[in-house]
């Protein structure tokens, strides 16, 4: 049994911010039906990398596959009034409706919250967008990095004295869906106790501000980069090899002594500039230079093992290859092998938790419209003839 068995989700969301939340729910047992259309293909299906480089195959995107595990897919042309009516029947079936369309789209196709409540009075509608559904920026059209800009992340990213920094991934598309998952589960708890549905409205900007609440509590004068307000050493140091680094953080004097011993810096323990945490913080630049000189010739993995064994927090700075080949992540169940009809056996990310009584189970992402017959015939009770007619007419497409 999964934690969310018997939970039904009608998932109108696409690309990243909505689908990552419904993946969490589907991997834990919820029945998630992804409503898609061949006429307005989920941009996630067009996102690289592709199996065999086949960008034209809507089922070949590995990006889509890892974002949509354990779901079902149906195709409905929501622009056709008959399609919208069929979508409403899925709303009536569902506990939760998820969407991340542009502002006003759900209303334009007749699926605004009041209409959903008319169809299913205790339904939970979960929306996620860059700026939320209310406020002066409610109509803002952006992307995941927009939230980094509007939340203070971009301004606080990068090296001190440099311009704001935008990493090459959309952190807002990571944090906001996690908040959406929390919002859905909290709304379900509320409904279980009150019998009442809700519309939960997640803005990508707000979760991004929440996760730097400590910076809002005490705004630093400069970007902190890798430094810590208290700890020193606390940084990333070069190791042997091209672009090879180790992260080291020292929380107390015992760890400091162990670090010096292991990296061959016994003389540093005696150096008055580094005698206490406060002194090390004051002389951080000199400290980092001393440590860098000692780590630069060492193997990052071996050094990290020696340090952690001695109780010093350390890790090699890993890259994509390291992650993909990590035996530790595989054995922890972080990547599980899932067989997919187009991608073949593929490593897919699993929830980062182990539930003793209700374990998760990660299944393959669906091919486009793979579950049309099962959902339209089985759940909605439509005849095979009606389904065929509507497919021919481009309504179920």
């Amino acid at each position, binding site marked *: 049994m999964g934690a*969310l068995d018997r939970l039904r989700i009608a998932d109108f969301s696409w690309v990243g911010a909505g689908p990552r939340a419904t993946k969490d729910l589907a991997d834990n047992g919820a029945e998630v039906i992804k409503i898609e259309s061949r006429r307005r293909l989920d941009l996630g299906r067009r996102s690289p990398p592709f199996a065999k480089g086949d960008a034209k195959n809507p089922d070949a995107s590995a990006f889509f596959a890892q974002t949509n595990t354990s779901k079902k897919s149906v195709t409905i042309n929501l622009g056709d009034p008959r399609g919208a009516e069929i979508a409403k029947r899925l709303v009536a079936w569902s506990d939760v409706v998820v969407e991340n369309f542009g502002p006003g789209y759900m209303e334009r196709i007749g699926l605004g919250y009041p209409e959903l409540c008319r169809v299913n009075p205790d339904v939970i509608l979960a929306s996620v967008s860059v700026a939320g559904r209310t406020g002066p920026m409610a109509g803002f059209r*952006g992307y995941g990095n927009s939230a980094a800009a509007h939340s203070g992340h*971009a301004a606080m990213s990068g090296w001190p004295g440099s311009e704001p920094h935008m990493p*090459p991934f959309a952190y807002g598309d*990571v944090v906001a869906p996690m908040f959406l998952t929390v919002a859905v589960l909290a709304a379900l708890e509320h409904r279980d106790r009150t019998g009442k549905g809700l519309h939960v409205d997640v803005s990508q*900007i707000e979760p991004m501000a929440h996760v730097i609440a400590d910076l809002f509590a005490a705004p630093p004068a400069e970007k902190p980069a890798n430094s810590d307000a208290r700890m020193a050493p606390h940084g990333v140091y070069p190791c042997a090899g091209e672009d090879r680094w180790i992260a080291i953080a020292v929380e107390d004097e015992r760890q400091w002594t162990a670090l010096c011993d292991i990296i061959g810096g016994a003389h540093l323990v005696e150096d008055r500039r580094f005698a206490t945490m406060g002194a090390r913080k004051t002389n951080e630049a000199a400290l980092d230079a001393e440590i860098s000189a000692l780590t630069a010739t060492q193997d990052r993995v071996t050094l990290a093992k020696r340090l952690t064994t001695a109780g010093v927090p350390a890790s090699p700075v890993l890259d994509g290859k390291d992650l993909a080949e990590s035996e530790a*992540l595989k054995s922890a169940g972080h990547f599980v092998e899932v067989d997919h009809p187009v991608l073949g056996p593929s490593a897919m990310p699993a929830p980062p938790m182990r*539930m003793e*009584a209700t374990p998760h189970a990660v299944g393959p992402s669906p091919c486009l419209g793979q579950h049309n017959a099962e959902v339209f015939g089985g759940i909605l009770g439509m005849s095979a003839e009606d389904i065929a007619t509507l497919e021919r007419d481009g309504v179920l497409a």
Partner: protein
Amino acid sequence: MNLLEGTRVVVIADGLTDLGGAMLAKLGADVTLFSETYKRGAAARLAWHHDMRPSADGETLESLLDSADILLDGRRCGGTHDDARDGRPALIHIVANVDNDRTLPATDLTLMAASGLMTVIGEPDRPPLRLPGEQAYALTGIQVATAALMGLRARRLTGEGQRIDVSATQSATLANYREAIMYDWTGRIGRRQGNKLVRGASGVRQVWPCADGFVTWSMIDNPAMMRALISVMADHNAAGELADIDWDAILVADTDQAVIDRWQGIVADFFAAHTKAELGAWSLDRGWGLSTISTLDEVRDSDHLAAREFWQDVPDGKGGTNRLPGPLFQCHAPPSEGTT
């Protein structure tokens, strides 16, 4: 927000559980901070613990657990309460650790290093960087809150609580949705590119100076967005050769880098001549996809966030208040009812 009203939570805070406890409190749960094994500065404690009730003198973990629904048990700094569910079968015991099977020493920085994210953050000629704040702890904290809510949902199905182990290593690594899969399928290993967004054969800028700060915008293959921007540039006689390009007929990702750089120079001159307020208003109105880059002070002064009642004035313990993030999201009741 009272979605979890009546739910009782006990927190052992160690960095990994703090945000999880804070989120459950903001959802209306009664959250007691039993202990802090990770001693933070006053500001960080204010940020993460302001909605929690400190345990009272004489309250023991045992006594708190007797009436609790959920224990958030942070183990980064050690400690063990494996017997927490003995005699309390309904308790949901969330154990947050560095990973599930090992107990390696770790901090936010080393967890971020292990996530693979730092390799792609920062400048090519400088060391890898982490994200601002303590994002590995934050990511774990959100998973801790998720695990607690999953546990509540499962308890409604089974009638019993359970133990749920949350891995900080996996929580941080899960945020890296791009690098492992890119290597798996293409053999490419991502490296730091500064503020350049590399797609296909070329790279485009992401951060641009304007008259009073910075904005983010990228010249990507979105013809409607390009036309919307160039229309305004043309109104200001600033579009140059961009006005003559058929954006439906070209792919920026396949365009020669020198040509892109020339085009970006025209855009840079336009952005540099206008303020964040002007550019932001045009973007909102015309759909450019441009965002103004706000400082922390500007975020706190945002009209938009004020309208959404996002901020919460929290007593700072010195007779003043500190303005901190408030609700996690907005809730709207069904049309016939008020706001929840």
